[in-house]
């Protein structure tokens, strides 16, 4: 019996190694200087890169963080510092339900909210879609680390006659900062690979983006469109792009593990 269970564990973890193996085997050879500095080439032409998609992903993540981090952290503060047990139960429930909303649905919602009224796909819309997805993620992790801050620090602050909001921002949040940063990084790593919410918001772009009100390229989008294309060159580029994206996400995870290790 133990052997059977060991075997299932092996089956469960095998995909990670298989995926990594193929990413490196198929993708590493196309990773060169050009890949990081050039625009994509039209079908049939050799070479080219994904510089615009890499920059685009960074820009989208920046916008997502600008929305998701303040709202998520403040919401976490509410849950940990102000909310009653009853309201917190329902707010957490809402956060968990939102976490389960399929990512493609976020794309449709932001399409209806921002793309239709402004009559254009845009980097803004993509950033908003990812940012909205981040909110419940950041909120839950922020709450979790804030409640770990001992009550005695809050009491010590109050006994000094410090206003509550200053205690929360300067003492409580600062004490839990590592955990909050960890949560933000995890949320960023999670949305960095999202493709579905970008399909009808950021749309993708084969050139440099000159304004955030225009469509913008992103690594996952580029990987998707290359993967389903009929050209071998593009398939190779898709593998290389996937390798870069995977490295980005894995390094986020490694940083998180590193940062949160000495907390336990």
């Amino acid at each position, binding site marked *: 019996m*133990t052997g059977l269970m060991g075997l*299932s564990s092996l089956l469960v973890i095998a*995909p*990670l190694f298989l995926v990594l193996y193929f990413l490196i085997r198929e993708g590493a050879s196309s990773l060169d200087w050009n890949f990081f500095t050039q625009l994509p080439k039209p079908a049939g032409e050799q070479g080219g890169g994904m510089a615009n998609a890499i920059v685009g992903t960074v820009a989208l993540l920046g916008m997502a963080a600008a929305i998701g981090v303040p709202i998520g952290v403040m919401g976490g503060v509410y849950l940990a510092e*102000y909310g009653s047990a009853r309201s917190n139960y329902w707010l957490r429930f809402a956060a968990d339900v939102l976490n389960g909303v399929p990512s493609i649905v976020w794309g449709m919602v932001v399409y209806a909210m921002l793309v239709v009224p402004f009559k254009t796909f845009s980097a803004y819309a993509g950033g908003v879609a990812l940012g909205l997805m981040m909110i419940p*993620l950041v909120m839950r992790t922020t709450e979790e680390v804030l409640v770990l801050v001992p009550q005695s620090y809050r009491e010590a602050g109050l006994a000094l006659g410090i206003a509550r909001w200053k205690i929360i921002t300067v003492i409580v949040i600062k004490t839990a900062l590592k955990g909050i940063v960890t949560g933000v990084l995890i949320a960023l790593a999670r949305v960095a690979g999202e493709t579905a919410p970008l399909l009808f918001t950021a749309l993708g772009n084969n050139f440099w983006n000159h304004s955030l009100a225009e469509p913008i390229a992103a690594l996952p989008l580029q990987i998707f469109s290359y993967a389903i294309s009929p050209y071998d060159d593009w398939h190779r580029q898709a593998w290389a792009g996937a390798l870069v994206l995977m490295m980005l996400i894995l390094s986020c995870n490694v940083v998180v593990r590193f940062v949160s290790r000495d907390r336990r």
Partner: protein
Amino acid sequence: MRTVTTPDSPAPVKPTSVSRWPDRSFHWLALLAALTLVGLIVLVGWELYRGSRLSIHQFGPRFLVSSQWDPVSDVYGALPFIFGTLVSSLIALVIAVPLGVATALFLTEMAPVRLRQPIITVIELLAAVPSVIFGLWGIFVLVPWLRDHFFRWLKDSLGFLPLFTGPIYGPSMLAGGIIVAIMILPIVTSVSREILRSVPNLQREAAYALGATHWEVIRIAVISYARRGIFGAAVLGLGRALGETMAVTMVIGNRPEISASLFAPGYTLASVVANEFTEATSDLYLNALFELGLVLLAITILVNAVAQLMLRSLAGGAGAKAH
């Protein structure tokens, strides 16, 4: 001590009142941020409803049971997609739940302690792999292998079942189900593990005291105690499976057919939206796609809510954390 008598320092700041508005506004700001959760749920539902009004008016409940999806004559029905979504998710569950629970049991009850953390870490990293990368790997590695080896073997050995008949293309309902299974395995495993860990040791010891073997203890004491929680983990996995988009879109074949064979291509709610949304030429077409999103949202929210309530009602509250 001499220092105590040092003359008092220059006038200390000692206000008799402080303005309360910063504290109040901070509180309100935090409340507002927390309430965005509720706002978002309303927003998501409202936007999808608003986007699908035309289609709801035009087709009514027929939309859910009609299997005609014909953009040329502007007639739409969701049945093949609902079918595809449910079938691929069920396949995923059938694969992922036994594997995930077995792995969780292995990790909590059997594995050498030194092995546990590395396996857990790998499973956590697996959860971080983006859907589109699984899709890419699925198109070029998994599906060809399934087509040339696994599906052939299935057909030879189980071909008498209607499930495993017909031509083998590669991209298929079964391939979609398998890739989704891989993607939900981390959450099924980690939630099951939380549940198993919450089984009190007393429970185990009681069974041992009755002279049960290790495996009997697991079967009697652990599994029976954790059954409800594991069911919750499965429902949570189902919630994830239903909404999977990119990887499925890339390997399921994308044909709105209802076929008994799992080797036949299928189509899911999420994939059809992903594929056709930017190509929707008529208003009604776009509305129909929005309605597919609405159906998907309704199913996933229902399933997720059930899973959350089940996991939360468990003693010890080993509820599912945001994952």
